[in-house]
């Protein structure tokens, strides 16, 4: 009778005080109220906004920083292939 | 302490779920025309105002009723209708300053908010808190806090503007 619904089981995976990096897709914890944050896993940097004190979200990239990282990342990759 | 229903149009999103749950609770049907609470809308301005009985201490409906069908229930702080006494003259509708007395054309009788006998569903279902059921003393406290919050926000902006100059 008390079998949980699909939705209930999915909801268990929710986390707060963190966002998912939009480059490497790792979960990243972040100090409350931070306006930007650099992903400790991949170094991409994001501008954040806060829906509540424990609910950050990515608003957009830190444009210049991420452009540079992407270029470096791709030139490395190309060298690796050659 | 007795509780009161407070209606806050600034929070209302206009979804009218309150009207729906009210008619289901009281009549077992979905029909906002038979709801005790009503969202009055100015659609082209995006203004939505919840209206319901204020359960007035000195209730004009009670005063005007020729057969004393309306009475005060002190335990729940509400004005109640005695349907056995009511003759359906609709004087209460005419005099209510909030339009909170209405006439159910299907049941052919007046209807008004009865606070769902202490658990008002409209408040229970209003996720944004545009309708809340709180201790009577709290109503003005809530108003004060909201007003003070706005005021301090304005003062901060003014202070910032001045320091920028």
């Amino acid at each position, binding site marked *: 009778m008390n079998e949980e619904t699909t939705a209930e*089981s*999915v909801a268990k*995976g929710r986390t707060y005080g963190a966002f998912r990096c939009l480059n490497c897709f790792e979960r990243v914890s972040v100090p409350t109220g931070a306006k930007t944050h650099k992903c400790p896993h991949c170094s991409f940097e994001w501008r954040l906004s806060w829906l509540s004190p424990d609910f950050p979200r990515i*608003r*957009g990239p830190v444009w210049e920083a991420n452009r540079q990282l992407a270029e470096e990342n791709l030139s490395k*990759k190309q060298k690796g292939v050659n | 302490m007795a509780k009161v229903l407070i209606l806050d149009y600034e929070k209302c999103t206009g979804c009218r779920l309150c009207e729906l*749950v009210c008619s*289901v609770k009281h009549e077992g049907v979905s029909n906002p025309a038979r709801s005790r609470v009503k969202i009055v809308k100015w659609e082209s301005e995006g203004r939505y105002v919840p209206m319901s009985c204020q359960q007035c201490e000195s209730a004009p409906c009670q005063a005007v009723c020729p057969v004393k069908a309306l009475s005060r229930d002190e335990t729940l702080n509400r004005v109640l209708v005695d349907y056995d006494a009511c003759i359906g003259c609709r004087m209460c509708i005419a005099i209510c300053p909030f339009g909170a007395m209405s006439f159910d054309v299907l049941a052919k009788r007046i209807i008004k908010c009865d606070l769902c006998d202490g658990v008002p569903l409209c408040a229970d279902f209003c*996720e944004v808190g545009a309708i809340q059921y709180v201790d009577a003393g709290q109503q003005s406290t809530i108003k004060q806090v909201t007003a003070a919050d706005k005021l301090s926000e304005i003062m901060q902006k003014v202070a910032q503007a001045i320091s920028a100059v």
Partner: protein
Amino acid sequence: MALNRKIAYIELTTGDIETKPIPVKVRNMFLGGRGLDMYLMYNHIKPGVDPLGSDNVAFVSAGVLGGTLASASARTHIGGKSPLTGFVGSANMGGFFAPELRWAGFDHLVIKGKAENPVYLWIQNNEIEIRDAKHIWGKTVHETQEIIREELGDRDIKILTIGPAGENLVRFANVMTGIKDAAGRSGMGALLGSKNLKAIAVRGTMDIKLERPEEALQYNKKVIEQITSAKVSQTQGKLGTPFIWGATNTQGLVRVNNFQLNQLEDADEVEAEAIDKVAVGMAGCFGCQVHCRSKYVIPEGDYAGVYDEGPEYTSQGAWAAEPGCRSLNNILVCNHLVNIYGLDTLETGSLISWVMELYEKGILTDEDTGGLDLRFGNEEAVIEMIHRIAKREGLGDILAEGPLRAAEKIGKDSIKYLVHVKGMSNLHSDERPTPGLALGIATASRGSDHLRSRPAIDLYHLPKQVLRNIYSQPVPYDGPVTSDYRDYEGKAWQVFWQETCYEAVDCLGICKFHTVFLGASLPSFEEWSKLLYYNTGLELSPLDIWTIAERAYNMERLFNIREGLTREDDWLVDRYFDEPTSVGIPGVRGKTIDRDKLKNMIDEYYEHHGWDEQGVPRLETLQRLGIENEPSHIL
């Protein structure tokens, strides 16, 4: 009971009106809303009719849960043969119209023929009247509603209407209700316009009797908790659909300058948080806790002080990404203009961006544009083009014919730059890095569209187990699932599943934001089974609802095939295969769709449906669904 709403047949040429009850047998086959409309479309529209001729039929409906204690059961569906694509026309809007239609006693309107002069319908408690609309012909969407309410003397009347664009038979004109709710896609506004039908006004005060009111209240409370506890609902309730931009543009998944770039760089004013700054609050559709519509007043410029609602995610694309514009004001103004003219924001923006590329490539000259400088980023030119399309002036008149007809008129290489499927322009999403999403737009029944079958949660990199949980209910699935949106494996099933899920909510009349579209923990088949039981008494298992949705989608497929659709129509334009993406995060750069892999996905997608390799439903599939003898003309 909740099922006793009727169907009305309205013959505008003669003025005859007939009403019929909807048998429970039909409910069990198609429920209502889009599903039953698809049955009616296949039965009432003769093959090969001119979509703008009097033989086409318009369908307006509420879902079977409309106006009940199922959250956000406010959706109105509009159907007919599409003036844009010539295939299934089908569009869906929120607001308050559908519940009001049900309180007035009706679930489905079947509108035939053509009125001699402009008319509108006035529907009140089981009565339908055809009224003169000469005085509102030419009025905007917002004006029309005010005038009708004033005229009929009731401020609670709900109205659906077309704007000047629909009157002018712009092939992607929409049907609207309220300030911004729009049945946007596939040109349903042109269909109503071709019938000289300006609007439908409705007011109802009749009970919808719920089967088990106490349980319906309790269960609805639980579902509301499920909806409001989801992070996506909280985000959407604050920022509206523009929140999506934070994920898509950030990674490089939107089309910019028509289809030349995949990220609008350095455009912070376009972000949801910037729009939120001018919002004056949020509004909700009937019975909805998500309240995802921003209310705003245009802060500056020629339209300063004007009130409107939205803009949605689609408008960020249509008025920023695609035409390469970067100001918030442009989005607000353009959103307002399409709302008052009654134009599909998405199709309009997409076509304007296309001609901007043609202009920059020299295919269109200053002479063709009437002197307009249509270079990307020119906001004044974009605004001017909206006026010209709605009024069918100059180049606007050509674009008003929709992508394929316009490409034919413009000629040269113009069609090479067009981004469409089945003659319908795409959302501003760039699906080159996301094969699942690409398959969705390639196969969607109404043309390139993100609301037919998009597995949007694919973008969230959800754990495999979560995906398996979702996608193996209510029918078992043990094929591959992957968390990476760049993969091809398993996506055909996801698209099939989402397509069936979205068809189901459209039959029920529930909003897609209340199911597994943007959030993985939102209600689906299990919850709907209970909602149906408590509210209407229909006893349908999750699997039964799935089958109904599958049946309805097969009716759409049959309709399209009867109108000449072949496998070739389930395909993308060459740009998806030949031009790699160039910006965004490293993972989405250099991406194209692989032709062979897409072909294999389509094979698999057909196989999941029980369709043959040409995409035609097999006889055994039709028999399994009980529609092998359609059209059956029961209703």
